[in-house]
């Protein structure tokens, strides 16, 4: 027994949400070969098939790459400041991949740890994630290595599974149930969850490995081809570094929180000119160490969902998976001979 929504009914539902004034985001093909999660202006933009996963992640709907946190303006000889309120948006992310949704509970740790980042938590509360289980995977996918899978439920409010003619609807939270209440009908059939990618690395061994190999020369070899761009971090569902800058004019300005990336040389550049992570190898090491040792040590979860976006978006085919394979010693080394 399961709940089902017909394939043709889903766009109608999206349109209904839009009509209700909700902000709706979901995968859309913006140009051939480029499927991205975007804010949908109409249900027609929504694309649910024909790609492995969007090139970006859903984190930008809870943690946008650019957010005003405070405004200031000059008034005579004084400066007036005004804190920006966390935005009040009621939003639905539809068609999220399980590996995207699973990133949200991971991120929750960070944004609620020593200080509650209201910009994140308010958005998070107002967001309902409707996840669509994966039908296919590619070489970059490795969610199963992180105890996730094509139908993982972490972070989702609703999980949709494709069945002939429609989607099985598994409402996992109250938010999810509210969204689909009255929109489904009960049927006999239940969806068959397709197999995910084979398990390629054993995360359990990684922490110890990284602990032991902090100063290993392999990092220098690994990082040789890394160009130092932010394509991996900016499309990663879990990367969350940000920078706070003031952008202003003579009249005043705005303090903004922007995404930042540990692979940029400027990321750790001190005002003095000194840079504790002056080379790309140190920055690559930081990225891996943070995801698979430091974050889990602190919060008990890996900072990775195995989505493979880092590899897919890397200009030179570098991704955490290939690095992990190498560090775990389970695969031949192809980089930085």
């Amino acid at each position, binding site marked *: 027994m399961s709940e089902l929504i017909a394939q043709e009914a889903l766009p109608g539902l999206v349109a209904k949400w839009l009509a209700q004034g909700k902000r709706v985001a979901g995968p859309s093909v913006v140009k051939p070969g480029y499927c991205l999660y975007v804010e949908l202006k109409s249900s027609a933009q929504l694309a649910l098939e024909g790609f492995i996963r969007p090139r970006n992640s859903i984190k930008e709907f809870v943690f946008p790459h650019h957010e005003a946190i405070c405004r200031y303006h*000059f008034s*005579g*000889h004084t*400066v007036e400041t005004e804190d920006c309120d966390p935005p009040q948006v009621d939003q639905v992310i539809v068609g999220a991949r399980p590996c995207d949704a699973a990133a949200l509970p991971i991120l929750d740790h960070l944004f609620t740890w020593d200080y509650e980042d209201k910009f994140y938590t308010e958005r998070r509360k107002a967001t309902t994630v409707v996840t669509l289980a994966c039908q296919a995977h590619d070489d970059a996918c490795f969610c199963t290595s992180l105890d996730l899978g094509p139908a993982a439920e972490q972070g989702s409010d609703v999980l949709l599974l494709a069945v002939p003619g429609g989607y099985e609807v598994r409402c996992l939270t109250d938010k999810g149930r509210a969204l689909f209440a009255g929109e489904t009908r009960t049927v006999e059939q239940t969806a068959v969850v397709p197999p995910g990618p084979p398990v390629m690395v054993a995360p359990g061994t990684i922490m110890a490995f990284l602990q032991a190999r902090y100063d290993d020369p392999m990092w220098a070899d690994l990082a040789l081809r890394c160009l130092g761009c932010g394509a991996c971090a900016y499309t990663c569902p879990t990367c969350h570094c940000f920078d706070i800058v003031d952008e*202003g*004019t*003579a*009249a005043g300005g705005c303090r903004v929180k922007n995404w930042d990336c540990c692979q940029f040389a400027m990321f750790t550049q001190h005002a003095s*000119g000194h840079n504790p992570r002056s080379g790309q190898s140190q920055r690559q090491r930081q990225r891996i160490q943070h995801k698979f040792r430091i974050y889990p040590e602190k919060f008990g979860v890996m900072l990775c969902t195995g989505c493979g976006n880092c590899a897919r978006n890397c200009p030179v085919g570098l991704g955490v998976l290939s690095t992990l394979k190498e560090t775990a010693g389970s695969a031949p080394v192809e980089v930085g001979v």
Partner: protein
Amino acid sequence: MGRIGVFICWCGENIARAFDMDELTEAVAEIPGVRCAIHYKYMCSEPGQALIREKIRSEKLEAVVVASCSPHMHLKTFRAAAAAAGLNPYLVEMANIREQCSWVHEPYEDETVAKAVSIIRMTVHKVLRNRALEPIRVPLTKRALVVGGGVAGIQASLDLADSGYEVVLVEREPSIGGKMAGLSETFPTLDCSQCILTPRMVEVGQHPNIRLYTYSEVESVEGFVGNFNITIRQKARYVDIEKCTGCLECWNRCPSREAPSEFDYGLTKRKAIYVPFPQAVPARPIIDLNSCAKFLRNECGTCLKVCQANAINFDDQDMLVTEQVGAIVVATGYRMYDIGREQENAKYAGYGEYGYGQYRDVIDSLQFERLLSASGPTGGEVKRPSDGAVPKKVVFIACVGSRDNAKGIPYCSKICCMYTAKHTMLYKHKVHDGQAHVFYMDIRAGGKGYEEFVRRAIEKDGARYHRGRVSKITEENGKLIVRGADTLAGAPVTIEADLVVLAAAMRPATGVLELAQKIKLGYDEFGFLSESHPKLRPVETNTAGVYICGACHAPKDIPEAVAQASAAAGKVQVLFSKGELTREPEVASVNEQTCAACFACVRTCPYLAIDKAEIRDRQGNLRKMTARVNPSLCMGCGTCVAVCPSKSVDLEGFSEEQIYEMVNGLI
């Protein structure tokens, strides 16, 4: 937030008639960073300046904006006032609310007021980012290089030497004297050219402060104002002028007499060992290897044998010597337009129709000067080159090459009208029954006594002037048939002449462009060197410490060349009058850490003030390359900043911060 004082000037009624000064001042006082805003009737007056000084002290102002007229008018005034109160003068800026606001917009209109406030706000924003600067000090070598030993170079050298400065005079030819040494008599006074010049030449040769390099050329110029490093190539003359006593026995005995004389423009032949002309300075001979039998065929060696001083040296080599100078005067003079068919540049078609080089009795005006000169090949008698006959009819053609866009050059060579009139006169004085004809376009005789001089040639000495061009010269039966037009008579004119003299255009001397590139001087499309400003800086150039005089700048006559030479010398004296040089500190500098060393700035800099430099670590290993600005050369245009992709070069006074701050203040 800054402590900026804004001083708003009424400029009497000039500014005050457009605004309610109190309201304007109130609005300005609200600009962030403004500590005090004050208006006053005449800010540039002594009480106005006193007010600024007082406020700088009492309000502890960090910077000052004077809102009044154009900075071109009074920036220096107000910077001096601030300096008097102990504020670094570069922390003063002006907001131009007079020329660019109150004078050009409707008084009291909202937009006018808004604009004034906006101008002041932008200036306040700029001055917030101004930095205290100190003038740049540059050491100064008080010696001068003069390039060219014609009359202009001689005058400049003597003026400088007489005022106590050492001069290095470099002349390309074996003797100084230039073109003037070969002239007959000079207009408008008809005094003898050599009589007035040669004493000056001797003075140069003997002056203790002048180091003379003849038969030498400037090989390279390095450095900058106050500190030029000059390499001079002394060409081999095969006669050691230190040993040579000037007895000229070698010259007397040299059997060769084949080479055309340079000094007589080919009208005579000279020997292989020769002094260019009897009054040459130095009066020392030189050997022309191309006509020397010893060198060509190892057959002669007479000079070697007769020289008592052992001064002949066939193994002589070019020598490079270096000299340090603080200033350079360029006086390289002119040459004549190539009249005939063989032109170095397709742009100039030449005047094949005049038969110059084809008919021996068609000569140019410098050749005619030699025919007139008492020291010339004919001893001052006018005899034509072909057969030595005294020409009874001479045709002078003006503007050969000048003022002719189609075949020549568009500019006026300026002296041809005058010397052509002089030629007709001197000719008439020597050939009483001769008739001079002149074809001219216009007569340009602006100058003291010039017009009178031309009238005298026409009215007293009977030169016949035809206003028109000559289309063709042909030779028939020993006569030159000159066919032209007289546009005043409206009729064609044909004259059967015995001699034709072409007043060819003046062009800059050969090699001047190479020299200009070595010294980094600008030049126009014709190769004349560019002055810094045609009105106000006529002898200065855009390269600091380099001055120009004489015909290398533009066609000019002797008095002008001499006056300009003295002016250039005067400018050098001004430069040398200080212990060291100070320069405005608003120059560019490179952030060497971020410089990518692409050197786009090096290519761009109009003053070649940016060099490629190395940064090395303490062990001496090359860490990286960088661009580096020589502040002594930088003139502060900022073109380097615009081409620098990473903005690693910045310009004091108009820095990126200052300009962005202004743009940010636009709203």
